């Protein structure tokens, strides 16, 4: 809306200056990308602080209190400190791989936001294959984890990298099947159209019985695994692998991994909101407020998981995915397809 208006204004202004169409596109989209980037940086900073506060209050503590009001400056301070830290590359590391791994993680985490609608009209680019693009891009993260695991030349890191590869590959499948059942109903891969197909609250896919809630739960479980959080945080299982794939990373590179993790978590929540919770739609409030509220509620659920559950073992994790989630999501997809074409439930 307002932001979209500003963007449109900028676009028209640039076009009127007589620049060639290509330059106008490049400049205006860079500005849009920068805005999204800045927004996500703020979100990630906020989420780190929020997670610390939530965990603290679940555990009957206070969490950060000394830097600013209830420690709201804490993450910024952490960032400033990490910038000042020495940047260590182990002598035996595979240098280029070690160097690029956090950058890949960082970029992959941010690239998903091209097609996520933050509000009515608030989208960088409404690709007609939106959700497919996101699935492809988020999988990119695991390459960075593998790179980090291999490049560190550390056995713990390698184990962590291998675990994460196995985990993401096996949880991708039920997740895609869960998303597919939504896509099937919406009849489109475009994120905006998926949101628009859930205009009324009873049209939200989470409320479409019987397949909706099941698909949502499968999506949430797979998403938790995808973003490497407890109970699926095996790649960085502190008690087994010290710190997993990022055991050798210090300073800014570690901060990039850390940020990528939180951005990924936000991505999972944002996609969940878009697909199942009606995206930006809601009465009275501006659309982007609704979007943020729903997404943050999902993020809260993810955090709640993390501070409540123990961790699964690696083979149990695989079993759970292949022997339970996959058949269930497949059956669910069939039910969704049958419902769509039998015309019985034609909302």
């Amino acid at each position, binding site marked *: 809306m307002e932001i979209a208006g500003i963007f449109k204004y900028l676009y028209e202004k640039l076009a009127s200056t007589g620049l060639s169409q290509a330059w106008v596109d490049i400049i205006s989209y860079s500005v849009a990308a920068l805005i999204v980037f800045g927004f996500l940086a703020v979100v990630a900073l906020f989420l780190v602080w929020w997670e610390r506060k939530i*965990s603290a209050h*679940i*555990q*009957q*503590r206070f969490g950060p209190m000394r830097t600013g009001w209830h420690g709201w400056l804490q993450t910024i301070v952490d960032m400033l400190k990490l910038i000042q830290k020495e940047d260590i590359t182990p002598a035996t590391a595979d240098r280029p791989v070690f160097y690029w791994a956090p950058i890949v993680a960082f970029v992959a985490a941010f690239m998903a936001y091209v097609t996520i609608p933050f509000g009515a009209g608030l989208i960088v680019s409404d690709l007609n294959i939106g959700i497919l693009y996101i699935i492809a891009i988020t999988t990119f993260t695991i390459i960075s984890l593998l790179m980090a695991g291999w490049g560190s030349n550390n*056995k*713990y890191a390698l*184990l962590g990298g291998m*675990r994460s590869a196995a985990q993401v590959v096996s949880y991708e499948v039920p997740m895609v099947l869960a998303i597919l059942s939504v896509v099937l109903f919406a009849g489109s891969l475009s994120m905006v159209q998926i949101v628009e197909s859930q205009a009324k609250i009873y049209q939200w896919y989470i409320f479409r019985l019987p397949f909706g809630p099941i698909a949502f739960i499968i999506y949430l479980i797979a998403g938790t695994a995808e973003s490497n959080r*407890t*109970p699926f*945080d095996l790649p960085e*299982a*502190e*008690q*087994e*692998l*010290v710190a997993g794939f990022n055991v050798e990373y210090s300073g800014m590179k570690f901060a990039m991994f850390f940020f990528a993790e939180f951005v990924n978590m936000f991505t999972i929540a944002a996609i969940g909101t878009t697909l199942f919770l009606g995206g930006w739609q809601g009465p009275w409030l501006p659309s982007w407020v609704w979007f943020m509220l729903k997404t943050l509620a999902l993020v809260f659920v993810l955090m709640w998981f993390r*501070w*409540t*559950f*123990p*961790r*699964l*073992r*690696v*083979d*149990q994790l695989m079993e759970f995915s292949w022997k339970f989630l996959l058949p269930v999501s497949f059956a669910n997809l069939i039910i969704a397809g049958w419902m769509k074409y039998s015309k019985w439930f034609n909302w």
Partner: protein
Amino acid sequence: MSAPFRTEEFLVNMGPHHPSTHGVCRFLLTMDGEVVVKAVPYIGYLHRALERICENRTYHQCLPVLDRFEYCTSMSCEYAFCLATEKLAGIQAPERAEYLRVIMLELNRIASHLIWYGTTSLDLGAVTPFLYGFREREDILDLFEMTCGQRLTYNYIRIGGVSRDIPPEFIPKLKEFIEKFPRKVDDYEKLLTENPIWIVRNKNVGILSKELALGYGVSGPALRASGVKFDLRRDDPYSLYDRFEFDIPTGTVGDCYDRYLVRMEEMRQSLRIVKQALEQLPAGDIKTKLPPNFKPPKGEVYSRIENSRGEMGIYIQSAGDSKKPLRVKMRGGSYNQLQVMPEIVKGGKIADLVAVMASMDIIMPEVDR
């Protein structure tokens, strides 16, 4: 199934600084992917020569050193040493002192099990129970603190009695704790016992058979979880334990889950003992007067008590003509439990090793001394 491609075993050095080795134990793991083929424990990173130090201290001076032998249950260490010395010298502590000792020992057992509860859940990835466990532990430490002024290394139980009487505000505070604690244990159980993830992580993991346990000298909750109903408090009663009613929880399979259940139940039973002891607590003296130049007669004794980690034994040999013991040997339950670990983690995953180590409740000072 024969592997179509060549795989290679590799060595992983776990420890001495590792988040889940409970201090400074080191495992040299031979791993085949995630599977532990062989685990060799290396100890001694906390070997502080306590036995040598005790040989050069008088009997009274030994007690603070003993506190550091097994710091999670310092009271037990002191008591084991005092019991051995009292047996050697033929001293009987006054009845009130014995009751106070029992109260302190059982409270300390609860505190130690709470540390175990916290660290075990932490090792399996659940962070929050750790903080819940430590929350109640602080209440117990408050009780100790108002009695003897220390939080961890108490030096409270002395040869022939205890160092001081409990303050007047101790009993109401303890009663409050007795009132509150069973509900808290229910809370702990609610978090983990029925949790499906907790169950799959612990059930049938690290099975310790009865024969293996006895052969390796495993004792305490780990032995009871394997199905041996053996508790020194009942089977070789010391102090006043024959006056109290309590159950001895046992397991059937001897896996991590059984060890977890046994320890949870033991907390309740310990609380029962504390309650009874508090009701029966008589008035009277708290200390037997010892000669200023305390020299136990020539002799030797191995006395053992039931600690939260198993049998804690102190062997003292006295030359008879010296204020200092000729030899003090400490035996902790963790020593034997760590020794049996390579046998039971073989073939498991690296995460199972962590689970087994946690459920055995091994702490390193008891192993290294």
